[in-house]
């Protein structure tokens, strides 16, 4: 049980007074970010990243990951009270959460949501503790072709799991790759796609893109939908909490299924949103009260929230073990790792034990801290949303511009942020997904490097991606996912197709 002793060592790291204080600060900031329109997990962390440059990496990652947990919790508050899903994976929570709030059962819905989020996260962290070292150990044997096939799988799974037009998904992804290619080529040192502009040499930083796409884009969308938020009031007192907790064990089966769905889907990129919908759908089909779903069933809140949090937590597993983030927020955390001088990937588990196990321990503690904070401070957080939009909106735009500037101390980035904001607004309305764009922008250079290294190894023969069982298996799976939308359309109910 090497993991357990490592974990206890991690607890010792995470429980220093500074780290505990940062944990609570992170949760508070995270919930505020999750509640405010225009700020979410991804761009909130992107904006706060520069403030952590001077911190020790372990403290910094603890604070930032706690912001992430906080933002996940915050999404439930807006979904239940305001019928506004803060993040795509909170959409399923609104189905039963908002009707419950309308019936005056907001406290029950929120307690149920928070508690099941906590259970989902806890389940995922336990899996994480034992699975992550295994995956990392396995990945130590990876060479460039294996890494490229994992990147390929990451990107193809967006196509396979995505709901919109596959062409739009691929287009958005490739735009991300193209933006990543701007600047100095890492192999030959030539300038690419700069067209003689010195400002373009630095390339596009994905943090600026994240702040613009998600921050400014969301403000524009909120503005389009009008300024008023119609919220239900929420009171959580200990009696409601205890009564709800007494009810929750009844839904253990739903909760357990949701945990499994969440963990399995979360490891796959872009998996949290399908996981929450899938979990809601399965619970609705299996439950005895399935026909009452949508009218305010506590089980209808438990199922998607548990799955979303389990998925959100396990999304960090590929980020930490392989260096492949599963969501924009995980990508921003990965960016943080790089800035603090840590190389994400399997070697992290060998060389930076304090960091890795401190982070894993903080996942346990951060979620406990999160549950305490959200259960006690809900009225305060709900009050934030009642601050008029005409005050919030300009302040958030100012915060975004500060965040974009501090990434590289470049004025040009503020203009880019504004441009990305317009792109984000338009793309979101036309169903071009933003997550693959951001992930491609983050991983573009490394995917290209591993591709070119593989090509050098094989002298330009693409068969290297099928040269052994492991790499061949991953590549085949990636191609199946890539062609999935086509296969579903062309070959309905036939035998398992063989991709070329």
């Amino acid at each position, binding site marked *: 049980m090497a993991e357990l002793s490592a974990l206890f060592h991690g607890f010792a790291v995470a429980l220093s007074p500074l780290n505990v204080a940062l944990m609570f600060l992170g949760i508070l900031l995270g919930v505020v970010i999750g509640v405010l329109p225009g700020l979410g997990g991804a761009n909130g962390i992107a904006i706060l990243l520069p403030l952590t440059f001077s911190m020790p990496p372990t403290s910094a990652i603890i604070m930032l990951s706690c912001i992430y947990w906080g933002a996940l919790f915050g999404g439930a508050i807006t979904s239940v009270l305001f019928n506004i899903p803060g993040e795509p994976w909170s959409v399923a929570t609104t189905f039963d959460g908002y009707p419950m709030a309308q019936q005056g059962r907001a406290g029950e819905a929120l307690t149920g949501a928070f508690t099941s989020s906590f259970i989902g996260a806890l389940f995922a962290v336990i899996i994480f503790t034992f699975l992550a070292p295994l995956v990392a150990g396995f990945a130590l044997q990876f060479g460039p072709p294996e890494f490229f096939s994992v990147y390929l799988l990451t990107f193809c799974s967006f196509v396979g799991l995505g709901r919109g037009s596959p*062409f739009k998904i691929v287009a958005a992804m490739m735009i991300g790759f193209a933006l990543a290619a701007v600047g100095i080529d890492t192999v030959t040192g030539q300038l690419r796609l700069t067209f003689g502009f010195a400002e373009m040499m630095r390339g596009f930083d994905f943090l600026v893109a994240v702040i613009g796409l998600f921050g400014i884009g969301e403000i524009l969308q909120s503005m389009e939908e009008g300024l008023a938020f119609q919220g239900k009031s929420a009171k959580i007192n200990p009696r409601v909490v205890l009564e709800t907790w007494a009810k929750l064990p009844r839904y253990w089966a739903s909760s357990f299924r949701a945990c499994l769905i969440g963990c399995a889907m979360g490891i796959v990129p872009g998996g949290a949103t399908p996981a929450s919908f899938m979990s809601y759908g399965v619970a609705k089909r299996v439950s005895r009260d399935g026909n009452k779903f949508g009218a305010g069933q506590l089980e209808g809140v438990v199922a998607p929230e548990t799955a979303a949090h389990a998925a959100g937590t396990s999304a960090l597993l590929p980020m930490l073990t392989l260096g492949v983030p599963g969501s924009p927020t995980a990508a921003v955390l990965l960016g943080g790792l790089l800035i603090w001088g840590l190389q994400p990937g399997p070697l992290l588990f060998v060389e930076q034990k304090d960091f890795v196990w401190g982070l894993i321990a903080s996942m346990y503690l951060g979620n406990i801290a999160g549950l305490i904070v959200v259960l006690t401070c809900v009225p305060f957080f709900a009050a934030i949303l009642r601050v008029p939009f005409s005050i919030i909106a300009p302040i958030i735009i100012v915060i975004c*511009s500060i965040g974009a500037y501090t990434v590289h101390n470049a004025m040009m980035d503020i203009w880019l942020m504004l441009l990305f904001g317009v792109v984000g607004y338009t793309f979101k309305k036309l169903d071009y997904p933003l997550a693959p764009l951001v992930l491609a922008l983050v991983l573009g250079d490394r995917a*290209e490097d591993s591709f070119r290294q593989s090509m050098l190894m094989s002298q330009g023969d693409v068969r290297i991606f099928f040269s052994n069982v492991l790499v061949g298996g991953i590549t085949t799976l990636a191609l199946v996912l890539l062609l999935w939308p086509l296969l579903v359309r062309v070959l309905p109910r036939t035998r398992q197709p063989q991709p070329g």
Partner: protein
Amino acid sequence: MSDGVQSERGLSTRTVEIVVAATVFMLGAVVVFDSFRLGARWASDGPEAGYFPFYIGVIICGCAAMVLLHAIVGKHAGPPVFVAWGALKRVMQVLVPAAVYVLGIQVIGIYLAGAAYIAVFMYWLGRYSMLVAVLVGVSVMTFFFLMFEVWFKVPLYKGLLDPLGFLGY
């Protein structure tokens, strides 16, 4: 808001879809063109600098062409109106001042431009009194000034004119 609901007319989704797909196509074409200029072949020392982006550009063009084709001939499933005129006006009410604000940053720096932007936004769109608006704007930016310049020692952009230069930060 009521005027957004009443006016069903607006920018059609098909138009926006076509314009966006055409723009994406051109972006892809630019990538293909520049990669080709750099060399997208296999040199003696391995793939050239434009090798990878060249194919990226080709895929962008292909996907954009398919989306364009769908938008022109296919049946569109989504809402026919991309954004109603009233809603577009509200979006512009945020976007245009935001652009002016960024221009302001360039000249007078983040702090003064930010205070002015918050104040004008509140006064104009929020219908607050000038006094309240200015007070909120100035206090928010004072807080940010203390946070970034004093506590965290992260200098922000002071603008070409640097009107706050007398503070010594």
